[in-house]
């Protein structure tokens, strides 16, 4: 019996099973991790790990365990999508931790949420003084959403009545010197247009460009391989 060979085969099985199951579960697992989702992830990962290396038992029971947990998560997802009440019970609800500028100590105590945690998360939201906050909500995934008092809100273009220009989303046309033909076609341009635009920036071929994007208004962002910087900024110690 070749243990390494068995581990390799079982590793391939658990890796691709996990990949397929993760795809079935969708993006909710990554983007909205609640505490429970976090534990689920760890458990599923741990089961996959046992499937790979625990040779004292067959691979099949571990795989069935993996399937069971994934099916349970999928079932909970379906339930929480279909029934709002069930969703509140399973995933919890957002909690107000600051209301009208006042800290809700009792609520925080119930949630076992410390003042230090609140301060830290406010700082991450670029709020360095709790006085600026009108409303703060502790979301289901542990993130804090903040509504500042009007006097501390940033001025917007609308406040200043300035004309706006919608740039839309930038689309990649060249990456690593290779032209992305699908995107070029999608933006209703062709190779000739691209070469003309490159020539305007003294670039002879797409292979000279590392990254190029175009906005819906036609503005180009070009990053060449040759950066020609006088001195590069170092951020390491």
């Amino acid at each position, binding site marked *: 019996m*070749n243990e390494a060979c*068995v581990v390799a085969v079982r590793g391939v099985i658990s890796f691709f099973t996990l990949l397929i199951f993760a795809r079935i579960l969708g993006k909710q697992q990554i983007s909205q991790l609640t505490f429970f989702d976090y534990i689920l992830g760890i458990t599923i990962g741990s089961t996959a790990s046992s499937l790979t290396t625990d*040779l004292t038992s067959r*691979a099949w029971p571990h795989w069935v365990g993996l399937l069971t947990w994934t099916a349970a998560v999928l079932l909970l997802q379906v339930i929480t999508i279909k029934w709002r009440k069930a969703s509140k019970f399973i995933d919890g609800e957002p909690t107000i931790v600051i209301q009208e500028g006042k800290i809700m100590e009792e609520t925080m105590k119930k949630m076992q949420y410390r003042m230090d945690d609140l301060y830290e998360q406010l700082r991450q939201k670029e709020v360095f003084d709790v006085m600026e906050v009108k409303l703060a909500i502790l979301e289901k995934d542990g993130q804090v959403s903040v509504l500042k008092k009007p006097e501390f809100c940033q001025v917007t273009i609308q406040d200043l009545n300035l004309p706006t220009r919608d740039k839309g989303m930038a689309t990649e046309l060249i990456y690593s010197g290779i032209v992305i033909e699908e995107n070029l076609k999608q933006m209703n341009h062709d190779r000739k247009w691209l070469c003309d635009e490159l020539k305007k920036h003294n670039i002879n071929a797409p292979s000279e460009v590392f990254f190029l994007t175009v906005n819906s208004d036609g503005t180009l962002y070009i990053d060449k391989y040759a950066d020609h910087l006088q001195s590069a900024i170092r951020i390491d110690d």
Partner: protein
Amino acid sequence: MDMKKLLKVAVPVAVIGFFILIMNSDFLFREPDGYHVPSQIENITESILRSDWSTADTQLNEMDTVLKETIFPLIQFSVEKDEMIQIDLSIARIRGCIQTRNRDLAVVYLQDIKSHWNNLNK
């Protein structure tokens, strides 16, 4: 359903199906070329009970070779490692019993192999 969508479903299903087959493939390789291990255990038991030690030794060696060279390499991905080790240990013990002409203990270990063989995929 277009081809791309069909492939998106068919490929993962095929992969999962293939994995399930590998994890339960022992039933395919337990009897290579019609070699039936429980029957061979019975043959060895009969030889030992007849005190035909020479035949018992030959039969045991034959079973050991088939297990180690043909069956175990194929079923190792779908059975418990410990059960295979136990079978291997019992064969070594029976070999000792044959050398010392210990009939009782040899039969006990043969039954032990039978039990481990049945538990390979449980």
